[in-house]
């Protein structure tokens, strides 16, 4: 790509639906898929698209996020020229629950927009599981001459998607934006491309509406907006509650999704490296249709589950349809079905915990049961 593009990732939002899982972290740093954090997808997508200057709007509880992204080395962002810029969100203790692009947060990053000479900025959320090449999007954006290009995905009508839906005319231009629609099919992916200078103007035009989401401002001012659209046709994993969390994790066992999202040699999903031993499957281990990360020692049975690094699973233990995060200990004979266990959870031998598809059991960090 000839024109220069930089990226801005919004990580200053959370959700109330995850219980203990988001007690002390933002959605962006929620562990996912055995060894990842959700923000890895936004960072990797940018890095794989040749973007070498990336800003991250950090939440107030940024500990786990900053620990994870560091200076951005895994995404080739540990650079002299450009690189990773972690910027604080707008106010301590304030975190929006739905909004990705709170204008107040963006205005706090005005310097980031002003000091670069890039033509375009990719603005992205940090909680979606997807693998996209921004190259063609930027190309289309440049050709269209419009200041904004919103990326959307067609979703089945009537499904309960949280976020914004786009009404698009035959030229691909956004006619209107609607929140939480049920009958709309063009689902906004929490990602848009904007001319850098236009975004600086946008901040001053709508500065008095800083408490609103930039997309809401676009929605309310459609008559002055000229917005192009780009259809993303790949897999988009949306995680808005623990039910989705297990489902989108289990998608990694799907052959097509795994190959598209995780095993694409051109666009690998990058993450902070952890140096763990290979997985030891002991004599009686029985692991099927599951994702297992390094450093685990398994003696029991695992089915349709995602096991993070350094988890020990005892003899005759059974784990089904569950997500066990790093350093978990599952004792001999324990049974877990539809359970999400945060880091360092210890399950005593013989304990049986059953969740349901609609209500998985969430066990908070460091808990011993």
């Amino acid at each position: 790509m000839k024109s220069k593009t930089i990226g801005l990732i919004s990580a200053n939002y959370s959700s109330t639906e995850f219980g203990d899982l988001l007690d002390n972290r933002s959605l962006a740093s929620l562990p996912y898929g055995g060894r990842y954090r959700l923000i890895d997808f936004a960072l990797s997508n940018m890095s794989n698209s040749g973007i070498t200057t990336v800003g991250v709007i950090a939440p107030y509880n940024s500990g786990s996020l900053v620990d994870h992204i560091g200076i951005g080395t895994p995404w080739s962002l540990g650079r002299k020229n450009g690189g990773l810029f972690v910027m604080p969100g707008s106010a301590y203790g304030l975190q929006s629950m739905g909004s990705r692009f709170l204008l107040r947060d963006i205005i706090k990053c005005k310097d980031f927009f002003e000091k670069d000479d890039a033509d375009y900025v990719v603005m992205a959320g940090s909680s979606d599981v997807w693998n996209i090449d921004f190259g063609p999007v930027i190309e289309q954006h440049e050709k269209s001459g419009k200041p904004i290009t919103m990326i959307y995905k067609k979703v089945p009508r009537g499904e309960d998607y949280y976020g914004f839906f786009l009404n698009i005319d035959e030229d691909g231009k956004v006619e209107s934006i609607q929140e939480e629609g049920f009958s709309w099919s063009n689902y906004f992916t929490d990602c848009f491309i904007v001319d850098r200078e236009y975004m600086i103007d946008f901040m001053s035009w709508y500065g008095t509406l800083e408490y609103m989401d930039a997309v809401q401002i676009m929605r309310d001012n459609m008559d002055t907006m000229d917005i192009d659209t780009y259809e993303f046709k790949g897999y988009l994993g949306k995680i808005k509650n623990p039910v989705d969390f297990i489902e989108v994790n289990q998608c990694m066992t799907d052959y097509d999704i795994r190959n598209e999202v995780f095993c694409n040699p051109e666009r690998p999903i990058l993450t902070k490296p952890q140096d763990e031993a290979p997985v030891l499957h002991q004599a009686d281990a029985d692991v099927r249709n599951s994702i297992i990360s390094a450093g685990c020692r398994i003696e029991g049975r695992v089915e349709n589950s995602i096991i993070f690094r350094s988890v020990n699973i005892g003899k005759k233990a059974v784990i089904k349809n569950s997500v066990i995060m790093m350093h978990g200990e599952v004792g001999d004979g324990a049974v877990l079905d539809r359970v999400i266990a945060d880091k360092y959870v210890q399950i005593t031998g013989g304990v049986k915990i059953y969740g349901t598809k609609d209500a998985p059991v969430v066990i908070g960090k460091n808990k011993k049961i």
Partner: protein
Amino acid sequence: MKKKKCIAMLLAGGQGSRLGKLTTNIAKPAVSFGGKYRIIDFGLSNCTNSGIDTVGVLVQYKPLILNRYVGTGASWDMAVTDGGVHILPPFAGETGGEWYEGTADAIYHNIDFIDMYNPENVLILSGDHIYKMDYNLMLNEHLDNNADLTVSVIEVPWEEASRFGIMTTDDKGRITKFSEKPKKPDSNLASMGIYIFKWKALRKALLEDHENDKSSHDFGNDVIPKMLNEKKKLFVYRFEGYWRDVGTVKSYYDSQMDLMDDMENINVFTKDMKVFSNSNFYHPQFLGPNANINSSLICNGCTVYGTVKHSILGSGAVVGDGAVIEDSIVLPNAIIGRNCKIKNTIVNEGVIIEDNLEVINEDGEVAVYGRAKLSI
């Protein structure tokens, strides 16, 4: 710059021709080990775990994978500002260039490098040993003895002593005699090829050895016997623990099975003396709906649909539906097709085995299959 108490020189230039097809296009220290490691990880990790932050890696034979793998040394926490890992290949000078002709010759050619750091002591290591060792314990003894050279030794069974370089000592551990593969050994302390020299003493010995036309420029054959003759202070350090020189296909296979079968040998799960590696960019492993895996080590990046028994699958290896892998080691990125039968075999790096093929070796025998395909 801070003066260094000890820097390490890691000999990684040998071909390791007894490893056959494993080293056709990869230097021995860069050969895969235990699934996700390469042999050099053990030496480099020992350095890090012993607080040694400056290591010269002497390369010569087919170093492409080795150079890339070691990189800046960041994977072993050695990307430090006043030291770090330095790859040291042979180089040309005013009067042309020379290959490294022996272990001592390789160090001789890098005297300027060591002088740059001007350490008090130099630790000489081989890049092809599997062991966990805290070199500090050895260095402390070396300093306590005010030794010119300390040789790390390990007790071997008497009946095997004639296969090793054997050190005979007095009751204080001072070396009185060194015999290479003695027919009638009078000691069972075998040299591990791990030396700590006072840099001043080593520097002088290397310069003298270089002038000697009859020398083969080898530490064991030339430098140590000469220092012993000159009544220099040579001591042994007794190492206790698991140590293997993976010189042959059999020992290469056996020591990996040791690693898998009993953690008492080399525990790669413990944080204590952790073994670091530079292979941590793979996605987690996926085990298919009919996968059947027992008593095996499986790495990140693996995809398994078939059966794996008592085997090691390296990073990124793939095992197709209906395939059966038994008592084998599949090196990184190898692909085993559907319904293959693999037994007592080491499948080389990146090798693709077509569907329905059988590669079976008799029990007690093991062979390497295929030529390694270089990739990153």
